[in-house]
């Protein structure tokens, strides 16, 4: 039951996101770009940190 509810919740989020993307993408392309761009900036900077974790575990005493 909880799984079903979670799925339904995710489906609602998906539909709302799609509607948001269609409406804001159409009316305010730069607002839309800001949302997508901010998410991208966060993900890329986070990925950079995780990559550093991997690099340090390969050579723990190396330069930073």
């Amino acid at each position, binding site marked *: 039951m909880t799984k079903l509810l979670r799925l339904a919740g995710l489906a609602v989020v998906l539909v709302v996101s799609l509607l948001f993307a269609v409406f804001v993408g159409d*009316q*305010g*392309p*730069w*607002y839309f*770009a*800001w949302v997508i*761009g*901010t998410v*991208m*900036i*966060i993900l*890329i*900077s*986070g990925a*950079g*940190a*995780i*990559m*550093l*974790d991997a*690099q*340090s575990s390969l050579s723990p*005493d*190396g*330069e*930073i």
Partner: protein
Amino acid sequence: MEFINPDVVDLSRFQFALTALYHFMFVPLTLGLTFMLAAMETVYVVTGRQIYKDMAQFWGKLFGINFAIGVATGITMEFEFGTNWSMYSHFFGDMFGTPLAIEGLMAFFMESTFVGLMFFGWDRLSRQAHLAVTYLVALGSNLSALWILIANAGMNMPEGAHFDPETMRMQFESFVDLVFNPDAQAKFVHTSVAGYVSAAMFVMGISAFYLLRGQHRQFAARSFRMAALFGIISTVAVITLGDVLGRLDYEKQPTKIAAIEGLWHTSNPPFEPWIVAALPDDAKQENHYEIGVPLVLTPLITHTFDQPITGMHELEDQAGPRIRSGIDAVAALRRYGVTHSGTDLAQFSAHEQDMGYGLLATRHAPGQDVTAIPADQVDDVVRATQPDILPNVFVTFWSFRLMVFLSLWFFALFAISAYLSLKRRLERSRLLLKLCMWSIPLPILATEFGWITAEAGRQPWTVFGWLPTFLSASSHGMSYMVFSLIGFVLLYSVFIAAELYLMFKFARLGPDHDSMEPHAPAAPMVSAFDMRPMAS
């Protein structure tokens, strides 16, 4: 009729500029640091590694100092609209009040409510719930900026309102037009992302300080890398949106773009040079010591090779008929206020679009009353008003250039820093680390220059094309203005001093504990610039 004292107007402008400049020292960090905290905490939730929690908490502490002091500087500005700019508030309040109220009720409350949970909820909320709170703080602070910039875009490129001769004010018409005004969109993204650049430089610079001292190495390396990547993408975005703003100014604010580019005469496409440096002389209406790069201006501004950009002399010429028509509009409006006759209303409607230019002429009319201009002196008044349509070219030209030159510096610094961090060659690049450290205040400076470009370039209007600045102020006495100005300067200087003191103190102290190197000293390293081994 009450006479306008130009000294009071100048002091009101000076006071607003000063409080806004102070406020803008705190805003960019708040806008950017919240999303950087969200990025660090996201990595913590995904990897479960303590060091990312330490990062979110330490940088969160510095954010908290900035937030607490910055909030106070913003609140006074909202009151200034009513106290010092009552004519403006009457004329444009219907339009301006809406986004300002939403900002206060929605975004500011959202930000302030969740900021408490963010600081005190670490042990009370689940990881995911705390992360959601951090994102809500970031969203709230940026949405605050959104509503303020929507209001500001309404002043620069009024959309979604019309002038009502019954109420003598701009009447709010369309919420969608207000919110989706292209200028609001571009301003918001440019300013928000300028905040990201400022926060990235702040985190990168302080991390560079730790790396130079060999302190908190693992903590600093991760913070540095995240900031460098955050910064380089944000700098590309800020430049892209800067281009969009320039193009919008070209379409909707021709006097601003001509002043930004120091363009006294209409350009000659495609050869017109982009002036890299010059000394614009506002009095003589020409540039001295121009250095330019040929062929660049036309594609840069118009995104074509054949469209001309109207110069300031030609804009003055074009304003002549509009001032004349505006004088008729103001005279018809005056008559309509008394008679309420359909004929007067029809005459006003015929000249309505030029009303602002008529209001601009009041400064040169006998007794500041355009209806009192004798017929044989109309030409003189029009001629005297024509140069008034231009902003201060020297200020607009140089504030824009300093912002742009700084953005090129940020681009280079973030790109090299990101590269060296990815290659793990940071610690030998001591010069770069020092440059990162010394560059911490520069994005905030660029933000101030950006704001000066936008607002000085908007002059002589508070509402572009509709309401001149000198008609927008309240009729205070000089002593009131001087007294409040001194009060603000003293108070805000104390705020800045407190901010700097606390920031330096807590940045020097560093994170509470180093989770990846609890006790061990950092491995000795040899730098290319400094051959002494570094101590932990």
